[in-house]
Every structure is written in C-alpha cells, then in structure tokens.
C-alpha cells in the first residue's frame, strides 16, 4: 500500500482522533481499550515515519477546510514540523506503554476519559506540527489547551481545580489577548498568514510595528513558559505523571517553542527581525527566565515541581537561542526542541516510576533508592546529564550548537547565562543522583520493601534513556533537519 | 396676518392642550388624570377637524376620548386608587425631556413652514394619490381609498395588532385569571426563589 504524502499527512492526524473515538467506545473492556491505544500510537508513528522517509524537500500540503474566505485550514509539511511530528509520535508510543503501566498500578479513576483525551491531545499536537499557516497553528494551539485541561484536572480535587484554572487562565488569556491580536494584525499587514521562508511581512510594515508584533507573539505564545507567564507549568504538575511526561515535557511546551521558531522563521523573518532595534528584549527575558527558574528549581523539595522549573528554564534556552537570530542559533533552537524532549520525558517517567513503586514524590525521600530501582534511576542519571549538557548525551549536542550560536552572535551575556545555568543545572540534578546511589536507605524505607515499577513503565523509560544516548552518537538526521530550517533549503 | 386668521384657532386649541397636559403632570389623582386625558384627546380631535383630517378626528374622538377612557375606568375599578406619591427621578426626567425636545425643535428649523403647499411631503406620493386614486378605486374619500387599497396591508397589520392585544388581554386576565395569579405567588414562596 502506498499513500501519497498528503494522504499520509491527513492519516497521521486522523489516526489519534479515531483512536480517541474507539477508546471511548471500548471503555468498559480495558484490555481492548489499551490495546487500541498502543496500536493506534504505533500506526500514527508508522504514518509519520513513512512521511519522514518519503519526504524530499518538496512542500507537501493539503487543505482541510475553507475556513474563512481567503484563509484555509491547511496542513503542509516542512522540516521543522516533520521533526516535531517525529518526536511527538515516537514519544506517544512510549508514553502510552508507560501510561498503561502507571494508570493500572495506581488504580486511577476515569481511565477511559484519560486515554481518549490523551489521544486527542496528540492529534492537536500533530495539527500544530503540520499546520500550513498561522491560523491553523492557532486553531490547534487553542485546541491543545482545551483538550489538556481535563487531563490537568484529572484528580478532581480542589487543588487540581485551582491549578486547572491557573493553567487555562494563563494559556487562554495570553493567546487571546496577544497571540490572536498579533495574528489578525499580521493578516492586516501582510494579507496572508501562510508560512513562507523569510517571513510574510512586506516593506510597508515599519520596524516599530514589527517589534510590537514580535513581542506580542513571544509573550502571547505562553506555552513557552517565558516569565512572567510561566506559572501554568508548575500548576499543571498536579496531573498524573504520564500527562506531565508527554504533554508538559513534550507536546504542550514544545508546541510553544515550536510556534515561536515558526513565527520567527516563517512569519516575521529572521533577517527582517535582525534589522529591528529592540528585539534584544526577548533574549534578555529568556536569559532571566533560565537563571531564575534554575534558582527556583534549586529550592524545590518535590521532584515533579523541580522538573517543572527545569522545563521552564530549558524552554527558555530555545527561546533565547531562536531570538539571537543567527542561522546557527536557530539551528541550536531546533535541535534543543528534540534533545530536551527525549531527556525530559525520561526524567518524568522516572519520577512517575518512583511514585508508582515506592509512593515517593519528595526529593528528601530518595536516599538509596537507586539500589532498589537501578533501571529507573540509571535512566534518570542519563537524562540528568543531558539536562546539564554533558556528553555522551543528547543535551550536549544541542547545547554545543546553542553556545556556538551565541558566540556567532557575539552575545556574551548569553554565553555567560548558558555557562551559569549549566552550573546551576548540575547543582540541582547531581545531588539527586548522588542521593539515589550513594546514600544508605533510610530506616523507614527499609521497612517497606519494593522493587522496580511495572514492566511497561520501566521498558518505556529505558527506551527513552537509550534514545537520549543514541542522539549523541547519531545526531545526523536531526542536524540535517535543523540545518534545513536554519539555512532555508 | 390678521387678527381673524383661522390659524389663531389652532394656536388656541394647542395652547389649551398644553395646559391640560401640564395639569395632568401636576395632578396626583389618577382618576382626574384619566378624565383630563380624555379631554386632551377631544381637543386634539377638534384640532384634527380644523386641520382637514375629519376621518382621524372622528376616530380619535371615539377611540382616544371614548374607548380609551372606558378601558382606563374599567381597569381602575380593579385597581384601588393608590395614595399620592412624590415624583421619582424628576431631574433625570426633565433632562431627558429637555434634551429630546431641544433636538426635535432644532430638527424643525430646516422644515418647510406649516401649511406650505410646496413642501416635498405634498408633492411626491400624496399628489399621485390625489390625482390617481379616484380612477383606480372609485372612492372619492382619498383617505379611505389609500387605507383600503394602496396601504391596505397596513390595515391588515392594524387588525392584527388589535387581535394580538385581544389575545394578550385574554391570556392575562381572561377566564379565571385569579387562579393563575395565586398559583405563581404560592410557587414563589415554595421555591424560596430570591
């Protein structure tokens, strides 16, 4: 069976939706339901993989609906979107496997609703990845917020509701107030919203308008968790761990930085932005976010909250790098989207595995746990190295390119920020690893023996850890894509 | 202009009407206001005769001064005469009225003067009614022919308005309406609706 690329595009997007419907129908039979989730995620991965193998620099596009006259909902594939789709669909397979183990072991309620919404969130993420114009991106960006809201509030407790309100409040209000405004403004200035290399604004748009648009986009796309609009991300940590792992380490937050890179490269245009005075505000804010979030992470006692602040800081790497506006720095931003994704999901998987097996969520309780859960904590250690940016992990590759970009742009402050944050990252990740492997088990822990988490969970986190290592040794494909985005081939 | 210009008559009637309206505004007795309203209608009917609108005068006298007053009195037999009360928001009312009145009078300044036969109002459609209607409908009274034929549809609408009002009155106070009144009052207390 051979499908034309545009059909593949459509099928990759439709499969998760079909999965969601089937999961909802098959709810009462949980083995069938979970089998559907796994098979569906594999099928989606298959479609994306076929797209990746068949894709050859040609623009593939498919119109879904004539949304407004002159503006369509359209999918089209370019390297950055392909990269994002590959990451999302790969990690969906792994996190589905992980989630089945996690949800069953913790006897979570409303599992059917959970898996159905999970699949819908992936559909929205792929919609973002494939979007052929800004309007389509916006539509799926909003859909993703709405679909993930019930996942964040899954627990249904007052605390979860409060967190949910913060989540929805910040994401929706920034997107409506800034992102939407910027989009309509862009349409008004440019007459189109298509993604075109080098941007779509024409000569008549002055530098001040461009700057305002740039700022509206950067802060309107609050999924990047740029300060001061970062509070939704720690709030979202009340969700079950698989949600945090896939959505708040990969899909949702990466949708944010993905959109930022898209806007910079395909809407505003790197070269045009480079000529606009004042754009340096954003890297400054991003740099501040990197340092501030790292400092906050240092003080966290709860493992998931620590990971959330680490995510905030890592996302700002992408924003910082992208807004330095040189080809190398754009490349670094793109690479970091991928590299951070695999490592961060591993960390969340590990945190969830610890919670499932040992019922521990505080860092202080992890003494000696590495001896009981060697696979889990081993994977954690690999991912932590990647966060710091040490070889032989994926994080080293992207951080290296980002640093090179900063040198290229002669942004010495950025270099300083990067160095300082590496130190800070080490300061909050290494003690955890040290604690897990080199401290004796506490007396209380010795009284409650436990082993590894359920097999599906361990399998998933081991695979992602291997990916983290693998991307260090074989970064070629990712590099090629990043280069294509940055240089405009 | 002479002292015996017939225009003086309508000036006088209008002045009378103003006095009546003023008294109604001041009066606290509802009954007396209704009676004066009838007189106001009668005065306007007289004015309409002078202004050549005999059909309107006849209708206004019978409907405005007659039926209307009867309807008021009928309703008031069911509504006890309430105690006198001061005015509410007199300042706001006065401001609104002065503003609207000033706007209206401003609006008249560019109007053709009263009775001007060259005003556009008399030259366009009206002229054609006067010249064509006899031939088309065979009725010498142009008001009747326009009412019944050219704008007969308005008359259908007018009948519908009366019909609507009749049904509305019937649904509100028709038949054993008092049952319907007590029921909601009780329901009100039961649900404790605030």
């Amino acid at each position, binding site marked *: 069976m051979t499908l034309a690329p545009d059909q593949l595009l459509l099928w990759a997007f439709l499969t998760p939706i079909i999965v969601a419907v089937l999961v909802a129908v098959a709810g009462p039979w949980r083995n069938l339901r979970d089998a559907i989730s796994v098979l569906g995620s594999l099928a989606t991965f298959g479609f994306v993989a076929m797209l990746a193998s068949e894709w050859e620099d040609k623009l593939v596009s498919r119109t879904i609906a004539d949304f407004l006259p002159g503006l369509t909902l359209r999918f089209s594939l370019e390297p950055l979107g392909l990269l994002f789709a590959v990451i999302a669909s790969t990690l969906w397979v792994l996190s589905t496997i992980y989630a089945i183990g996690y949800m069953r072991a913790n006897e979570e309620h409303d599992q059917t609703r959970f898996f159905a919404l999970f699949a819908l969130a992936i559909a929205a993420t792929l919609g973002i990845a494939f979007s052929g114009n800004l309007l389509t991106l916006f539509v799926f960006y909003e859909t993703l917020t709405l679909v993930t809201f019930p996942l964040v509030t899954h627990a249904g407790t007052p605390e979860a509701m409060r967190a949910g309100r913060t989540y929805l409040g910040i994401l929706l209000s920034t997107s409506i107030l800034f992102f939407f405004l910027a989009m309509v403004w862009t349409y008004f200035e440019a007459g189109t919203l298509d993604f075109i290399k080098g941007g779509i604004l024409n000569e008549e748009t002055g530098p001040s308008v461009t700057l305002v648009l740039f700022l509206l986009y950067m802060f309107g796309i609050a999924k990047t968790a740029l300060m001061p609009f970062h509070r939704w991300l720690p709030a979202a940590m009340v969700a079950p761990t698989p949600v945090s792992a896939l959505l708040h380490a990969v899909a949702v937050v990466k949708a944010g930085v993905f959109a930022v890179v898209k806007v910079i490269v395909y809407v505003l245009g790197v070269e045009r932005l480079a000529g606009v005075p004042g754009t340096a505000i954003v890297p400054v804010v991003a740099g501040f976010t990197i340092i501030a979030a790292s400092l906050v992470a240092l003080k966290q006692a709860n493992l998931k909250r620590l990971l959330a602040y680490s995510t905030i800081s890592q996302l700002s790497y992408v924003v910082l790098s992208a807004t330095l506006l040189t080809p190398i720095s754009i490349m670094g931003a793109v690479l970091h989207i991928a590299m951070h994704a695999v490592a961060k999901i591993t960390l969340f998987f590990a945190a969830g595995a610890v919670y499932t097996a040992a019922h521990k969520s505080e860092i202080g309780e992890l003494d000696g746990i590495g001896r009981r859960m060697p696979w889990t904590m081993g994977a954690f250690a690999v991912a932590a190295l990647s966060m710091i940016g040490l070889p032989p992990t994926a994080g080293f590759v992207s951080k290296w390119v980002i640093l090179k970009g900063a040198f290229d742009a002669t942004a010495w402050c950025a270099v300083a920020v990067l160095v300082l944050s590496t130190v800070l990252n080490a300061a909050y990740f290494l003690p955890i690893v040290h604690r897990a492997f080199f401290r004796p088990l506490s007396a209380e822990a010795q009284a409650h023996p436990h082993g590894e988490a359920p097999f599906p969970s361990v399998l998933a986190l081991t695979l992602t850890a291997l990916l983290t290592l693998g991307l260090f040794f074989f970064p070629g494909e990712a590099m090629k894509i990043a280069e294509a985005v940055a240089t405009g081939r | *202009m002479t002292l015996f210009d017939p225009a003086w008559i*309508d000036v006088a009637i*209008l*002045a009378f*009407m*103003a006095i009546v309206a003023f008294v109604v*505004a001041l009066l606290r007795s*509802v009954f007396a206001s209704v009676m004066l*309203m009838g007189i*106001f209608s009668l005065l*306007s009917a007289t004015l309409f005769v002078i*202004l*050549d*609108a005999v059909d*309107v005068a006849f*209708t206004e006298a019978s*409907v*405005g001064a007659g039926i*209307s007053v009867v*309807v*008021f009195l009928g*309703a008031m037999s*069911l*509504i*006890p005469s*309430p*105690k006198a*009360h001061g005015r*509410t928001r007199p300042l*706001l*009312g*006065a401001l609104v*009225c002065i503003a609207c*009145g000033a706007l*209206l*009078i401003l609006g*008249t300044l560019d*109007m053709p*003067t009263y009775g*001007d*036969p060259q005003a556009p*109002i008399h030259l366009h459609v*009206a002229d054609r009614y*006067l010249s064509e209607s*006899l031939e088309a409908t065979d009725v*010498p*009274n*142009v*008001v009747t022919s*326009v009412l019944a034929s050219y704008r007969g549809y*308005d*008359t259908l609408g*007018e009948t519908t*308005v*009366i019909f609507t*009002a009749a049904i509305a009155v019937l649904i*509100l106070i028709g038949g054993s*309406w*008092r049952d319907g009144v007590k029921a909601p*009052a009780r329901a009100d207390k039961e649900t404790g609706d605030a």
Partner: protein
Amino acid sequence: MEFPGLYNYWIAMVLMMMGLYIVITDPNMVKKIVGLSIFQVSVFVFYISMAKVRGGTAPILDDRFTVYSNPLPHVLILTAIVVGIATTALALALLVRIQAAFGTVDEEAIKALERET
C-alpha cells in the same frame, strides 16, 4: 416667516415631551400609561399638522375644490390610533395582574417588594 410658521410643530413637540416626562417620573404605573397616551396623541398632532396645506380642504375629492390636504398622514395616524389603544389595553391588563400579585401599582413599593423576595 409667515405666521404661524413652525408654531404648530413646536407646541406638538412640547406636548410630546410633557407626556414623556410623566412616563419617566410618575411613580404610579397607571399614570405612566396616561402619560404614554398623551405622548402618542401629541405625535398624532404632529403628523396631522404636517398634512395640512394652506387653503386646502379635507381630502375628499369633489369638483368644487382643487387644493386638498395630504391624505397619507391621515391614513398613517388612523393606524397609529388603533395601535395606541391596543397598547393601552394591554398595559392596563398587565396592571390589573400586577395589582393582584403585588397589591399595589406604585413603582417604588413594588421595587421594595421585589427586593424582599
């Protein structure tokens, strides 16, 4: 400007505003309807004044006359009079029900009662 100029219109407008003033300020809900009637009748006066042609007669065609007043406003006002009485009747029916439900037709008293419940 020849007498009476715009005098007819002006008085009609003053009458309208007096009616409107009663509607806005009188707390008695029956009296408000009286005000409404005065307002409407004044509008009728305004329309019929517009129809008048100097030296004209009632628009009943006859060989003896050549100048007639404008028949169209008469037609309109005939309709408007009927609409007016329909509105009045409906308003009074409502007031009968309000009297039965609240025991008063005083606006302020009813407002107080509504706040209570």
